[in-house]
């Protein structure tokens, strides 16, 4: 599989750290020093997560010189879709005017990499020529806005990639370790009269220390695995594009991999943690500013609720 192009979209409304300090007991200085985040974009007004996905998809299609009729399958990576059902992928399909199959994939913040693996399998089977992957997230709808530890971390965004058969994905590794205790959110039990005791919705809960440990150790393991299996040395990689969860996770993983800071691009500063959308959105922004060039070798690495993790060695 090769990736032809990336696209991204952000909500219009940008919320700076100072605005959050009016809602919860925090400060710009604390958020910057503990997370690396300065601001984030949050859906408002008529914006929806599917409309963000559509914008990102159109950008990726335009950059590939393709139209929606060239797409044979739509996969949407989302942790918190627009509705419980139908799938956000189907909402995006309708708005794009596509007629191909469409389905969501929930693998937490690793969703984009899980979709890459699925797209690779579909393209190898040969009955589809191109797959559109859209990672569209509205994690701010899951956040507990009374919790200063987590509410400051997240933002909304969408990223997209157009993939077709070819040589590009040199190696990929995915993992899952079922653990519902350290990172989760729950929906309520509805009004079913037989549901006793009543199940209440629980907003996003996260055990920061456990996630930090998991993220750093698992990312480093996954990255070393894909490098070894792809026959590429770390020094030959142009960029390590990691899930944008927390600046300190990025810095610690980078230090353990003994690679220079310039190889670890970030968008967490202005976007916050945008879940599965972070990596494709960042790659799209790197396309825009010229950092991403044809022929470069990338390592993508993500981790998230599940717990899931994954890494991919990709030539663009």
């Amino acid at each position, binding site marked *: 599989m090769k990736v032809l192009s990336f696209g991204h979209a952000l909500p219009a409304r940008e919320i700076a750290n100072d605005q959050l300090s009016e809602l919860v007991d925090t400060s710009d200085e604390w958020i910057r020093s*503990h997370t690396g985040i300065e601001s984030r974009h949050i859906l408002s007004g008529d914006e929806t997560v599917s409309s963000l996905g559509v914008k990102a998809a159109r950008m990726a299609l335009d950059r590939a010189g393709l139209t929606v009729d060239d797409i044979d399958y739509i996969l949407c990576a989302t942790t918190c879709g627009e509705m419980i059902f139908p799938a956000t992928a189907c909402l995006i399909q309708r708005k794009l005017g596509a007629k191909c199959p469409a389905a969501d994939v929930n693998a937490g913040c690793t969703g984009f990499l899980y979709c890459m693996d699925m797209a690779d399998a579909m393209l190898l089977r040969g009955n589809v020529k191109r797959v559109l992957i859209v990672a569209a997230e509205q994690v701010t709808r899951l956040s507990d806005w009374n919790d200063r530890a987590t509410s400051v971390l997240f933002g909304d965004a969408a990223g997209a990639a157009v993939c077709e058969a070819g040589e590009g994905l040199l190696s990929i590794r995915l993992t899952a370790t079922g653990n519902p205790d350290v990172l989760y959110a729950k929906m309520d039990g509805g009004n079913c009269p037989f549901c006793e005791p009543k199940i209440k919705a629980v907003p996003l809960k996260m055990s*920061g*220390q*456990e996630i*930090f*440990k998991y993220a*750093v*150790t698992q990312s480093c393991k996954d990255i070393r695995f894909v490098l070894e299996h792809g026959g590429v040395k770390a020094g030959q990689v142009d960029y390590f594009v990691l899930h944008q969860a*927390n600046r*300190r996770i990025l810095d*610690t993983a980078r230090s353990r991999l003994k690679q220079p800071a310039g190889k670890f691009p970030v968008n967490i500063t202005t976007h916050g943690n945008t879940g599965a959308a972070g990596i494709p959105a960042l790659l799209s922004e790197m396309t825009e500013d010229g950092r991403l060039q044809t022929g470069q070798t990338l390592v993508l690495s993500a981790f998230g609720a599940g717990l899931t993790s994954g890494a991919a060695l990709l030539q663009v």
Partner: protein
Amino acid sequence: MSTYETIAKLLAESKDMDPGDIRPDMGFAELELDSLDVAELVMNLEDELGVPVEIDESLRTIADLVAKVDNK
């Protein structure tokens, strides 16, 4: 090297602290280590000693961490 000496060495390396300024009874807050600093210290300790160390709410001081490792 004792567990305490290993912890002091790791803190000296990663946080630029003087090992002589670190005492077993010191709390992480007193050492100006936040929760992610403690998680990083535990990870480095796991790497150094080759044993897993669980992080829980009882972990508040250097002595707590030493006890957790030595009582495994």
